[in-house]
C-alpha cells in the first residue's frame, strides 16, 4: 500500500497552521491555567500539605497536571480539527480526495497529538519555575506522554465525527473527561481515599494514566505500571477500532 504522503503533509501543515494562528488559546492559555494550579495548589495550599508518598505536594501534582492538560487539549484539538470541516461543509474536499482513512487520521490525529506534546513539554518547563522535580524514568515518561497524546487525540477525532453540534462537542469533555481527570488522582494518591472509593476509582481509566506517568517521575505509583501501560494500549486499540468502523461505514461522514 502506498501512502498519499502529500495529502498527509497537507492536512498536518494545515492543522498546525491553525494552532499557530490561534497561539493564544491553543498554547498560551493552557500554560497559564496550569501555572495557576501550581501557584494555588503547589505554592499556597501545597506548603501546608504534608508530603505524599515521600514527595512534596507541589512536585506530586506535576504529572497529574500535565496529564490533565494533555487529555483535555488532545481531545479538544482533535475533535475541533475534524468537526470544523464538517460544520463548515469543507469536508467535501477530504471526502472527494484520493486519500484513505489511514492518511486522514494520521494527518488530523498527528497534528493534534503534536500540539498536545508541545503543550506537555511547555508545562513541564513551566513547572520548573515553581517546584523542583525529578524524572527517574525519562524514556517511560516520554512514552506515556506520546501514547496519551496519541490515544486521546484519536478519542477526540471520534468525538468530532460523532458531534453534530457545538454543544455536543463540549459535552463529553465537560461532563465525562473533566470529572474523570479530577477524580483520577491528579491531586491526591488514591490510597488517601476510603477503601470503598479506592475500589470505585479503579474503574476510572485516567487513574492508570496518572499513576503510570507519576511512576516515571518518582518511581512510586498507585497501580502497577504494567497495568498502566496495558490500560493505555487497550484504549488506543479501542479508539483505532472505532475509527476503522467509522470509515468503513461512513458513519456521520457519508450517506
Amino acid at each position, binding site marked *: 500500500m502506498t501512502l*498519499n504522503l*502529500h*495529502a498527509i*503533509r*497537507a*492536512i498536518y*501543515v*494545515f492543522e498546525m*497552521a*491553525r494552532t499557530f*494562528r490561534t497561539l493564544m488559546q491553543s498554547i498560551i492559555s493552557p500554560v497559564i491555567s496550569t501555572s495557576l494550579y501550581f501557584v494555588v495548589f503547589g505554592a499556597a495550599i501545597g506548603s501546608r500539605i504534608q508530603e505524599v508518598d515521600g514527595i512534596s505536594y507541589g512536585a506530586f501534582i506535576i504529572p497529574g497536571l500535565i496529564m490533565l492538560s494533555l487529555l483535555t487539549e488532545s481531545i479538544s484539538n482533535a475533535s475541533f480539527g475534524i468537526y470544523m*470541516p464538517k460544520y*463548515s*461543509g*469543507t469536508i*467535501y*474536499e*477530504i*471526502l*472527494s*480526495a*484520493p*486519500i*484513505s482513512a489511514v492518511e486522514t487520521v494520521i494527518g488530523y490525529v498527528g497534528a493534534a497529538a503534536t500540539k498536545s506534546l508541545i503543550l506537555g513539554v511547555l508545562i513541564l518547563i513551566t513547572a520548573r519555575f515553581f517546584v523542583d522535580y525529578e524524572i527517574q524514568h525519562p524514556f517511560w515518561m516520554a512514552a506515556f506522554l506520546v501514547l496519551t497524546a496519541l490515544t486521546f487525540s484519536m478519542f477526540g477525532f471520534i468525538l468530532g465525527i460523532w458531534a453534530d453540534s457545538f454543544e455536543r462537542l463540549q459535552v463529553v469533555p465537560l461532563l465525562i473527561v473533566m470529572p474523570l481527570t479530577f477524580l483520577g488522582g491528579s491531586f491526591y494518591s488514591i490510597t488517601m481515599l476510603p477503601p470503598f472509593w479506592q475500589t470505585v476509582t479503579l474503574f476510572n481509566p485516567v487513574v492508570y494514566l496518572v499513576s503510570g506517568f507519576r511512576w516515571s517521575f518518582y518511581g512510586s505509583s498507585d497501580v502497577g505500571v504494567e497495568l498502566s501501560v496495558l490500560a493505555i494500549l487497550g484504549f488506543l486499540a479501542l479508539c483505532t477500532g472505532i475509527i476503522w468502523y467509522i470509515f468503513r461505514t*461512513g458513519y456521520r461522514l*457519508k*450517506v
Partner: protein
Amino acid sequence: MHAPASAIEIRGLSKTYPDGFQALKGVDLDIRSGEIFALLGPNGAGKTTLISVVCGIVNPSGGTVRVSGHDIIRDFRAARSLIGLVPQELTVESFESVIATVKFSRGLFGKKRDDAHIEKVLRDLSLWEKRDNRVMELSGGMKRRVMIAKALSHEPKILFLDEPTAGVDVELRRDMWEMVRRLRESGVTIILTTHYIEEAEEMADRIGVINHGELVLVEEKNRLMKQLGRKELSVHLQSPLDTIPTALAGRPLELADGGHTLVYSFDAQAEESGIPELLKALGENGIDFRDLRTRESSLEEIFVNLVRARA
C-alpha cells in the same frame, strides 16, 4: 493500455437515502473525454447526488461508476485524483489565506508542491492580488472563485461544476464561461449542472436532462435544438376565422385565441421559412391582420416540455 473514450462511465447507478428517498433510479450515462456536458434538471432531480456519488462524497446504493476506466470504489485513488469538484454550496475555510487553502487542496490530491501552477490558477481567476487575504474577507463571488481555484489546483482531467453560476454576478459568469472554454481546449472534460438553460445553450456540447432520478434524455445540443427548436409566427387577425381557409391548406397552420390568431410553425434552422408566401396568400384571400409576431422555442421550453411530458 489505450485510454478509454469515455471519461466517465455510469451503469445502473442508484441511490436511496436512509430516509427512503430515491434520488437516482438506475442511471446509465457516458461522458466523453474532452466534452462539455450539461446536466439539466429541476431542483431535487438528482443532479447533485449524481455528482456526489462520482466524486466519492455519497455512497451509491447500486450500479458502477468508472472514471477513465478506474472503478470509483475499488480504485478510488486513481479515479479521484483525476477529478476536480466545485460544489454548489459556498463552503470555504474562512480563517485561512486564499493561497494556503488552495495549496492545501493541491496537497490533498497527492500532487507535489508547484508554486508556479498555483500562481497561474490564482491569476487566471483574478485572485492573485488577494492571495494573502483571509477567505472570510472576500465577497461571495470571490469565494466562488476560491472554490474553483481549489478544484483546479491539482490539475484535474475532469471538472465538475455544480450550479457554477447560481447567484453569481454577470462578470464572474462571463469569466467562468471563458475559463471553461480554455479548460476544454486544454483537454479537460467538463460536467456542469445548471438550471439556467442559457448556460447549457451557450456552453455545452451535449445535454442530459434528469428528472425524478431518471435520465430523461441525452443529446447533442445542436441536434436537440434542431429537433425541438421550433419557431412560430403569430398572425393577429382583424376578424376571427372559424376554420383555416382551403386556400391556405397544406401549411402547418393552427387557429388560436378563438380564431383571432393564426399560428404558423416553421423550422428555425431551414433556409426558407415560407413566411413571404404565407403573407402573400393571406393578402390574396382577403385576410387582413393587425400584427405579426415571431418567437423561437428556447431550450427552456424544450426542457419544460420534456420534463412535463414524462412527469
